[in-house]
């Protein structure tokens, strides 16, 4: 850390490599907006960053209570970073509940910016606190910046015509302004965002902009902080044009792009469910791309309508989360039996049952791979980050149409709502996979297979090609057949077809040495965390490499060989060891060590490095 004296300022400007900041407040305090604005501004400053939104399932849990706390953590850095950070350096706490819920994660000696205006006796009672944490020694060992934001916002907006209540609602922008000052961020991006956001309500634009500026000025007039910090632009990111993207936005773009590459119209059948609803919302806004979105009466209707659209010659897509997946199972089986393309987007959340809808988990893997009646094989892919979600969605579209099969795409809450800088792709490099519908009745059979094991696709409306298909077992002509040998053969053919998908994967990439003591095998959203943990472990001299699985099913053909290079394979998962179970049954001769975490929170880097250390030291 270097200290630079800023010209014209008495306060030292310290350069930091990375900062982890967590904004926490009541769910009505606008912490998600505050966090995402800080993210956007940091991105434009040129930092690398990663975010972790963490909010309650209730839209408005009782004000001031612990269950009502909403948090947004982000790490911004001058270096290449992979995670939102294990422990915050800075906690911004808007009320007592937000303070006590988050304090334990803060780094020792960390900075606490606390809104003292919300620490009255009633506030403490709502947070079930008997003593005031500002006074009872709870904050010993932390640097505390007390600011009565409630009062300051009223002072700052003294001239405004707004009601007292509306003025109070601007306090998150005051707070944001304050933090912009501390970390030397420009105000323009947020100023502009406010102007657009409240375009129809000029008094709100004015008040919030004033609040932002007032917060910034409060820092500037030296009354609160001992110094300012700067996190310089990163040079770790490759050159190019960037924007921020979250996972569900990326999926929506992926659906549009994938369908274009296939030359098909995408048709989404969906039903609102946390955390997948925003995919439906995003795609509903893209009608000019020819996207049809249908909000159906339930999860089952949603997948059935999507299959109907595929039957009619479009690319059927359905978006959901775990409970919806359970409901869609029978219809997915029909798509397997009828052999129609279908994209099933499962944005996983913590289960079982309703579970914890806004918390992260990877516990739908076995449901995705096996969770249907009958022998019903289906390719399963998993995205590893928000930006990766675009590429994986496109690849899922490719597999669906090339192999005439439903494909499951797995994401989770961490990817869906988390955002990261996204290097905008060169669209011209995306490979097309245009669908050719069968139109020639000569020699045509409904289930006649090509070299990949796929069948022809006929679009209803085509003359002289009429067919009847369904969920009953059929023969090659598509006619119902209960013939024993035919059922054996068709079952084998469906399995072989899905196995053949693995022939289209690129070689498995091992990051680190291809031989070593331990391979960390991850899938899904823990990629950034595992990446950092393996980097740290290698720096500590350990012979650790990593592989991240995009294709969860069928498994890559070369995986067995990759595993041969390692004494043991550590499989960290936010479930009770589902991928490890699959691997053990497929490749029982390797030594798999399952590492399970199901707290509704992502792994910490330190948890993985410690696990690696424990394994290698024993």
């Amino acid at each position: 850390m270097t200290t630079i004296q800023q010209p014209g300022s008495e306060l030292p400007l310290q350069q930091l490599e990375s900062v982890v900041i967590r904004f926490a407040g009541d769910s009505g305090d606008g912490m998600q907006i505050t966090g995402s604005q800080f993210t956007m501004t940091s991105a434009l400053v040129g930092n690398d960053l990663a975010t972790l939104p963490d909010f309650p399932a209730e839209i408005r849990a009782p004000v001031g209570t612990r269950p009502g706390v909403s948090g947004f953590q982000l790490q911004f850095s001058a270096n290449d970073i992979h995670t939102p950070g294990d422990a915050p350096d800075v906690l911004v706490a808007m009320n007592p509940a937000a303070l006590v819920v988050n304090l334990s994660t803060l780094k020792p000696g960390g900075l606490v910016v606390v809104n003292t205006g919300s620490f009255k006796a009633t506030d403490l009672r709502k947070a079930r606190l008997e003593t005031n944490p500002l006074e009872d020694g709870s904050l010993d060992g932390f640097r505390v910046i007390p600011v009565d934001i409630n009062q300051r916002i009223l002072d700052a907006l003294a001239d405004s015509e707004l009601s007292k209540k509306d003025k109070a609602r601007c306090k998150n922008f005051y707070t944001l302004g304050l933090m912009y000052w501390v970390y030397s961020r420009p105000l323009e991006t947020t100023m502009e965002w406010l102007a657009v956001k409240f375009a129809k309500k000029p008094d709100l634009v004015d008040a919030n902009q004033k609040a932002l500026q007032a917060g910034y000025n409060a820092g500037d007039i030296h009354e609160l902080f001992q110094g300012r910090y700067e996190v310089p632009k990163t040079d770790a990111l490759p050159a190019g044009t960037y924007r921020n993207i979250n996972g569900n936005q990326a999926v929506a773009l992926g659906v549009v792009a994938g369908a274009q590459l296939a030359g098909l119209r995408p048709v989404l059948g969906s039903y609102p469910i946390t955390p997948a609803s925003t995919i439906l919302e995003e795609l509903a806004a893209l009608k000019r791309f020819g996207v049809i979105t249908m909000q159906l009466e339930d999860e089952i209707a949603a997948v059935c309508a999507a299959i109907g659209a595929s039957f009619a010659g479009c690319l059927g897509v359905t978006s959901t989360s775990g409970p919806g997946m359970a409901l869609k199972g029978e219809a997915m089986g029909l798509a397997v039996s009828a052999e129609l393309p279908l994209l099933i987007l499962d944005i996983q959340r913590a289960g079982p049952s309703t579970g914890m809808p806004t918390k992260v988990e990877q516990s739908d893997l076995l449901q995705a791979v096996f969770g249907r009646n009958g022998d019903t094989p289906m390719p399963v892919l998993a995205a590893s980050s928000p930006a990766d979600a675009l590429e994986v969605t496109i690849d899922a579209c490719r597999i669906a149409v090339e192999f005439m099969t439903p494909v499951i795409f797995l994401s989770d809450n961490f990817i869906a709502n988390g955002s990261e800088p996204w290097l905008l792709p060169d669209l011209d490099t995306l490979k097309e996979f245009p669908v050719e519908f069968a139109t020639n009745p000569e020699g045509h059979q409904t289930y006649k297979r090509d070299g990949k094991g796929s069948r022809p696709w006929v679009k209803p409306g085509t003359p002289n090609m009429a067919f009847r298909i369904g969920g009953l077992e059929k023969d090659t002509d598509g006619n119902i057949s209960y013939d024993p040998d035919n059922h054996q053969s068709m079952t084998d053919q469906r399995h072989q077809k899905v196995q053949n998908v693995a022939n289209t994967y690129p070689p498995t990439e091992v990051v680190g040495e291809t031989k070593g003591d331990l391979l960390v095998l991850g899938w899904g959203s823990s990629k950034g965390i595992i990446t950092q943990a393996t980097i740290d472990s290698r720096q500590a001299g350990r012979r650790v490499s990593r592989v991240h699985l995009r294709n969860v099913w069928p498994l890559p053909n070369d995986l067995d060989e990759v595993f041969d290079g390692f004494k043991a394979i550590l499989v960290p998962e936010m479930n009770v060891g589902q991928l490890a179970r699959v691997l053990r049954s497929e490749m029982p001769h390797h030594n798999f060590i399952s590492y399970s975490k199901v707290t509704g929170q992502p792994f910490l880097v330190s948890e993985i490095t410690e696990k690696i250390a424990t394994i290698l030291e024993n």
Partner: protein
Amino acid sequence: MSNQATLTKKDFQSDQEVRWCPGCGDYVILSAIQKHMAEVGADPSKVVFVSGIGCSSRFPYYMNTYGFHTIHGRAPAFATGIKAANPELDVWLVTGDGDAMSIGGNHFIHALRRNLNMNVLMFNNQIYGLTKGQYSPTSPEGKKTKTSPMGAIDRPFNPISLALGANGTFAARTLDTDSKHMAKVFSAAHNHQGAAFVEILQNCVIFNKDFYNDTVAKDVRAEKTIDLIPGEKMIFGTESEKGLRVNGWDVEVCSAEEADVWDPGTDSSAPAFLMSQMDDDPNLPMPLGIFRQVEATCYDKAVNQQIDEAVANEGPGDLKELIWSGNCWEID
């Protein structure tokens, strides 16, 4: 329709052997539909039959058109996707009382509410045939079956009332023993722009043989039923001597001269609902024919119109522009 007007009923028969029980009412319905298709000069390559699960749901395999035999109760949802994806297709849904009113009740009402431009043929035999004789959601109270040995205690659905309650724009009832009546109703349904629901009373000769004979057997039909014909007086009876009229909130029997003229297109569906509820009154005839026929926006058209509008207003989507939208920054 198409220029293939020379097609005959036979051209709509597939090469598959029909496998319903001998004497099953489904045969005549199949034949009536094939005949109707030939008569209107339908183009088989534009027609899709969609079904769920049950005896009736084998129907698509026997039509020489496109067909999708789906899963139990969900046919309306598949049909929604097909029709939205390609509104040009002439979509026919074939379902039964169990498929549509029980496991698929939710999809049934929503398809009618959305008013997809398709035809919904519900074969009502008041029993589960394919699973061998359990009571269905349209079985009358007291119906003794293997799963209701002491008599069914469920109150049955009245399919027409349900369709009206779901805001259906077309509801009609016909009879498997009357090919002429079926032809008339199918034509009206096919011409209707919107979801046309047709309940077909269908004889399951194995598990619920002649269940409807008290009302529709030849010797009693004239007295026990009335044909609702739009724009005509509501008249019934062996000598066509009786009529129906609406008096306050009730329907009552009157002389043929005093009968009201039937209008299935009133703003409110209340008159149609009154008619549908006559089933429960032993002193009134059971209506067949067209209960309701009104115009409303079709979902499949509207979905595609919104896309045309978006393209007209915002221009066709450009993926590159979309990806490059929002706050971008350069790193060099």
